[in-house]
């Protein structure tokens, strides 16, 4: 049984239907990428999962439907969503952001260890530990957003374009750290990414969205060999 299973998920923004039938499956500990052009419904798919947009169809997590649950309820079940753009709390310090991530946990000693682990993973954050998140650079904010999500000890991490707006070398650093996080923690991941080359460094399988529908699913290797995919998303 997969950890997360979306079947024919639909979603509307007002009268406009954004998702017309998205089906995605994330196995326990697996990593799945979502590729697609602008407006294909990638971000909306993630929002449907985390409960930040109303959705139809079936969304089953860990054997139970989570469709229609409030975002805080979904989060408490072990799904951590790093939204598009800044996923940080600007007026709070780096430390406080991480503590907010751990808000539902009571294991103090383990929390301190996890913070230490993340600060090793992202040394920039250690330097800015007492600064407000709003004072960080774009790359540092993304590192903090990922770290904050990790602090909730999720079983599934949902990442919406972690490379958005970052310089290529910074995006590389963020991705390297995410790869390490995945290897060392075994968390399942669902990653939306415009930059398919970056996405392929993390994911095992990929689902392609077109105008609100999932049109193709395959392993990373299969899709790299697909001419159409290569032309559309890999710049070759």
């Amino acid at each position, binding site marked *: 049984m997969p950890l997360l299973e979306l079947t024919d998920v639909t979603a509307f923004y007002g009268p406009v239907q954004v998702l017309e039938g998205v089906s995605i499956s994330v196995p326990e500990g697996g990593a799945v990428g979502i590729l697609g052009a602008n407006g294909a419904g990638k971000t909306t798919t993630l929002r449907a999962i*985390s409960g*930040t947009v109303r959705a139809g169809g079936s969304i089953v997590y860990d054997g139970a439907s989570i469709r229609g649950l*409030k*975002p*805080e309820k979904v*989060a*408490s079940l072990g799904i*951590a*969503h*790093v*939204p598009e753009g800044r*996923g*940080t*709390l*600007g*007026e*709070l310090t780096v430390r*406080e952001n991480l*503590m*907010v*991530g751990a*808000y*539902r946990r009571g294991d103090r000693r383990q929390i301190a260890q996890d913070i230490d682990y993340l600060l090793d993973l992202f040394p920039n954050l250690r330097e800015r530990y007492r600064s*407000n998140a*709003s*004072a960080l650079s774009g790359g540092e904010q993304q590192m903090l957003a990922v770290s*904050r*999500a990790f*602090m*909730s000890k999720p079983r599934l991490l949902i990442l919406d374009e972690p490379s958005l707006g970052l310089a290529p070398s910074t995006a590389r650093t963020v991705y390297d750290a995410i790869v390490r996080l995945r290897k060392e923690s075994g968390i399942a991941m669902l990653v939306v990414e415009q930059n398919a080359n970056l996405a392929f460094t993390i994911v095992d399988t990929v689902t392609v969205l077109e105008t609100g529908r999932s049109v193709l699913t395959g392993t990373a290797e299969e899709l790299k060999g697909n001419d159409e995919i290569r032309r559309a998303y890999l710049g070759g």
Partner: protein
Amino acid sequence: MNQGALFVQLVVDGLATGSIYAALALAIVLVNQATGLINFAQGGMAVLGAYLGMTFGNLAIPAVGPVAGITIGIVASVIASFVIGALVERFLMRRFQGGDPDTAVVATIGLLTLITGLCGLIWTYNYLPYPFYFSAGLSFRIGDIAIDVWSLTTFITILVLMGLLQALFRGTKLGLGLRAVADNPRSAALSGLRVGTLLMIGWGLAAALGSVAGVLVAVKSQLIPGMFDAALVYALAAVIIGGLDSPVGAVVAALGIAVLENLAGTYLDWVGHDLKIAVPFVLIFIVLILRPQGLFGRKSVVRV
């Protein structure tokens, strides 16, 4: 009275008045920290809390005696205010969540009018005495300076509340949750924070705090629905000058405004009694020009 003693007396009196502004300012900072809004109804809610305290107190005193009855009245007022604050958030402010914050602020102005009107309807517009442990005029002397017992009580109460609030925001999990929700409720929800509950607690705490201020003022000036209208102006000035996110800043600014106002009214002939109320506004202008985030506020960087 010699010049030195006059000066000290003016400062002491200023600190007492300032304590009241400070209490209201603390409640405003609390709501702002928890919701990002300025609640113009904070003064009105404090007045309502004081009326409730008086009513509960007057009911309890014949049964259990004055000291216990007064205490019951105050405790009941604090609890009732917490519930009212939480309900206001749940059933009124919640409807404006996610919309334009200005709309929500205008709604709080409407709420102020509503509460003031309701208090007048229930308790009339006449001055009503608040039952308290001692009478408002009680004082003792240290040398030339008269220390008002009410002023001292108020001052100490406010300092204690300020310390508690600072500790709540900077040192507790609940405080962190309140600040996270104020910063960005949607983002906070993604970390599993119960946004609705935290907002209700924030409003409830602010109303409870306000009711303490309400009781203290009612003891001094007696109860009347509009008794906090002027204090609200000073409290808002204190909040702006001290920094919207700093309980200590709000208290220091409130005390400073009241002391400066007293000194200016006495020593500067052209200010006198009539121009005293202009003092906080002049201070606001100066602070906003030199240090827009407030004297104690943290600078928030807005990225484009």
